[in-house]
């Protein structure tokens, strides 16, 4: 009984010793041969190393040769003839089409050369403006780890620098433009952007009823189609004039206006109240004369001149009140010489007993980015 147990134990020990000794024998006879595999990735632990010969590369375990390959590469570089490589704890080996690619840190070899150059993740550019079209924000959204400086320069119609600002990508850039006009915006952030955009900030006049817009003097009698003449003075103030004389009627009635400060856009409204009672060379288009000034923050309507025997009513839209009667002439009612609207748009009405001359126009700030 005891003898049988001893025999079993010694037989087991002998088999283990044989296995350990056998694992130290040359390739194919050990416990752990490197499998022959055409396209494979290996993790080799132990004393593996590789040597490049003139016509093959050999993988050794200790002193015995485990496998042969066409050529060996380490970290993307081919081995020189006679060069040895060994790694510390583990050797990572990729065998593809009989070529061995070795890495000690597990970085896989990558096939394919770089043909694209810079490869930045896409940056989303979002442009936004406030309600009043004077302050603008360009937002750059990207999942970048570091920040890049971006410069934004704004040039006006005459090529002068109207505004400039710097910021970062990712991040935002804010700038403001004081006067209505067309602008060119240069976004410069190497290597991302070197591009130009058009920015148009303007007051759009629409919904015209018996009204016409002029950018210089107009002395014609345009009744009955036009009872309200709108003179756009913005470009004169932008060019630096201190004052301007606006002639409105055939008789040469004129109004002298001085340059406002801090103006976005400026208009003179000249209205005629009667279709037949004033003759052409009489005082036409001077019955109600108002000035509509868009400042940085609001819209200011100021009375310049009123005359004639008819009653007049001047209305404007002003949120949240809606249509507001601000001025009456020759009748009972509000007598406001100046009215401020803190909204981006307004509509102005001129009314008299001669409803054939009632006029209307809508003014709205508009900013376009392209």
């Amino acid at each position, binding site marked *: 009984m005891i003898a049988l147990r001893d025999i079993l134990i010694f037989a087991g020990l002998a088999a283990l010793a044989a296995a350990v000794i056998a694992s130290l024998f040359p390739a194919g006879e050990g416990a752990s041969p490197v499998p022959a595999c055409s396209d494979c*990735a290996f993790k*080799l632990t132990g004393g593996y190393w590789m040597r490049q010969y003139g016509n093959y590369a050999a993988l050794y375990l200790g002193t015995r040769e485990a496998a042969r390959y066409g050529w060996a590469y380490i970290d993307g570089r081919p081995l020189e003839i006679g060069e040895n490589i060994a790694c510390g704890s583990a050797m990572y080996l990729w065998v593809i089409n009989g070529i061995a690619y070795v890495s000690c840190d597990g970085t896989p070899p990558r096939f394919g050369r770089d043909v694209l150059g810079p490869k930045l993740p896409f940056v989303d550019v979002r*442009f936004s403006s406030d309600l009043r079209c004077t302050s603008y924000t360009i937002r750059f959204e990207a999942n970048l780890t570091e920040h890049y400086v971006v410069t934004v320069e704004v040039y006006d119609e005459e090529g002068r620098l109207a505004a400039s600002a710097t910021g970062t990508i990712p991040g935002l850039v804010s700038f403001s433009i004081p006067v209505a006009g067309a602008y060119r915006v240069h976004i410069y952030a190497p290597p991302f952007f070197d591009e130009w955009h058009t920015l148009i900030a303007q007051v759009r006049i629409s919904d015209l009823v018996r009204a016409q817009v002029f950018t210089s003097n107009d002395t014609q009698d345009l009744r009955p189609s036009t009872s309200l003449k709108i003179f756009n003075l913005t470009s004169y103030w932008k060019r630096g004039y201190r004052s301007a004389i606006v002639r409105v009627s055939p008789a040469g009635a004129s109004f002298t206006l001085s340059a406002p400060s801090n103006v976005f856009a400026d208009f003179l409204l000249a209205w005629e109240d009667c279709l037949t009672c004033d003759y052409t060379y009489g005082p036409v288009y001077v019955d109600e004369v108002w000035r509509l000034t868009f400042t940085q923050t609001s819209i200011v309507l100021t009375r310049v001149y009123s005359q004639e025997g008819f009653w007049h009513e001047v209305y404007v839209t002003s949120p949240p009140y809606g249509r507001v009667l601000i001025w009456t002439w020759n009748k009972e009612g509000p007598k406001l010489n100046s009215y401020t609207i803190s909204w981006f748009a307004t509509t102005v009405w001129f009314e008299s007993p001669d409803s054939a001359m009632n006029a209307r126009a809508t003014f709205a700030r508009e900013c376009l980015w392209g």
Partner: protein
Amino acid sequence: MWSLAYGLIALAVVAFVVLYAAAHAPNFTTVNLADQLYGAKGWLASNLPSFPRVDSTSRFRVFVNVVRVAKANATAYDYRMRQWVAFPIYLPVGYRLERAGENVVYQIYLNVTRCRYAALPRGEPAVLYEIELRHSLGQLPWLDVYAAVPHNLTQYYSWLHSYYTAWRRPPAVGLTPRVGADVRLVELVKVEWALVYDATNDTARLYVAVPAAALYVLLVDYPLKLPLTCPEQIASVSASSGSQRSDTPTIDLPSPR
């Protein structure tokens, strides 16, 4: 007592040998480059319709996985409003795509550098595309080039217009809603092509002659299919509404957004 000690020692020796052998046995997995390449191209193909579309070259130079487009206007018949409508479309003219697998980097750069009307040797009118082509894995042995000839151009644009009304953003010819969605509206014709390698600047130029009625060419690096258009051709066709053609490109001014 002694037998138990012998037994434990034997067990320890066996355990050591088993563990040592397990730790030192070569650990291996198979590497399938073809699968990785297919996966990379398949990923690009499935994400292609959602890649950002850029119309400025400065962005196209640096960003990856973007589509360069040209803006244009198309005319379609709106069946709901019962009138002709003009709407903006994007015409794909370039790609910068990259996707890396475990052991392979797939990159493709395509850019339509020129396209113009030309006559084939037998006198048929054709449009000749010159496409700059760069590829991370050398040249493409399996490159296929097709021309997409619409059965009815108005029908095609009306179909695109339905996406414009639904999404309120310009659809891209050949890419909206995905590549190959217009299979019932176009006929894919195999076309002649030639690849010319220029060693001085390491670029290859692909010359493709397509029928003049074609809307776009479809480059196939299977399974990745990339449509490319000729903006000058489309502008002149829509300007002359198909009856007459001029070789003068119409210039679309950028519309403010």
